[in-house]
């Protein structure tokens, strides 16, 4: 999952550095991801992992690093699906 997230960040995060060099806890905003780019990352993550981030998760801290995103995705997958 980490590599899939990294790939999505590389495509949509518009970082000022190479996404391959990101450590799991590196701050994506400090790496140059803007609020606008973060929305595109969220949309791509929802599409790729077939999930929907609820509003309580749509905040800066949930998308600030690869590991934070991974934790959020795992939390969503652990929840029973809502039809």
């Amino acid at each position, binding site marked *: 999952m980490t590599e899939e997230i990294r790939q999505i960040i590389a495509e949509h995060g518009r970082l000022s550095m190479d996404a391959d060099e990101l450590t799991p806890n590196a701050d994506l905003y400090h790496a140059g991801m803007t609020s606008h780019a973060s929305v595109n990352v969220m949309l791509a993550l929802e599409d790729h992992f077939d999930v929907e981030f609820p509003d*309580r998760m749509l905040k800066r801290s949930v998308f600030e690093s690869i590991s934070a995103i991974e934790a959020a995705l795992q939390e969503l997958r652990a929840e029973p699906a809502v039809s």
Partner: protein
Amino acid sequence: MSVSVARDQTRDQAFMGAVIRVADEVAAPNADSVDREARFPIETIEGLREAQALSAFVPTELGGGGVAFETIAEACFELGRRCGASAMVFAMHQIQVVTIVRHLEDADWFEEYLQALAREQRLVASVTSEVGTGGDMGRSVAAVTPAEGGMRTFQKQAPTVSYGAYADDLFVTLRRDPDAEATDQVAALARKDQLQLEQNSSWDPLGMRGTCSPGYVVSATIAPEQVLATPFPRVSAESMVPVSHILWSHLWLGIATDAFERARAFVRAAAKRSPGETPPAALRLSHLMSELSLLRAEVSSGLTEFVEASDEPGRERLGTMASALRFNNLKIAASEQAPRVCQGALGVCGIMGFKNDTPFSVGRHLRDTMSACLMVANERIHHTNASLLLIAKDV
């Protein structure tokens, strides 16, 4: 720190009584000259200083008034009814104070600063806009730069600094360090004796003339402790943006309410001249009341939601995109509705409202509220909202 914990009714009432006295006795009689001469409303600010109103939101344990946020908002409304520029200066000062108080995190320097602010009734202005950022407050060019003796320096090109020449201290957004990205921002507080201001543009605007907001090159040398520890993006989302939008919208509502009151006085005068007949302007006034009600409802619900969300542990809700949309919408709605109400009042009063020297003049109200859509341009906020709406769920 919660915004409404331990609300002390007596204390809040005493504060409001003092603010209303200054509004009625000082701000109102000077409003026209402040506007005409585009001069700083010095007598109103001095009156507020004497009433210890500049430290109203500072906690009592730091020597402040311990007044609730809702009451600060009410004070902005009351001042707005008498002098829009005075209200805007007061509101902008309170935005900085509320922001610092909410993000103190026991920092010694900032606690001592707030004590000095309360003791000396220091006036704080903000330097958030910057040349080269396209009006985006979430980006900075100027950076906190290491200097000799462990100090920090910065130089910022600010297109507008409201009451910069009259402020004791400036709250400034900057990049964290010279290598930081434009969005990696912090906020720093620089005191007057550490600052150099070089004015580089004039101030002769359409409205809000008393805010005296020309452009400056702002330079300072400060200690590292004068940089707020909490990263600015969090400070911005949890406090500075919603607090700005709430306090601004309260004073815009105040201006619009006074315009409505003038229109009502005009209609009553007409009705007294011809008893038994409803004056034609009365119908227009009724339409105008529904416009004012919409504004009042939006402003009031924005305040309530913010206070509720601020009382939640960790203020989690204020960090969400749904919250950003909510308080952005408050700003857009209030800044569009306030001049609409003032224009409606002009429609009721006719030539008597158009003239600048009648009891029914609303020109200043209309011009002052026309600044609302420019203070952080509404189109920029719409761009942000458009992006957030792609992903937010319940809005």
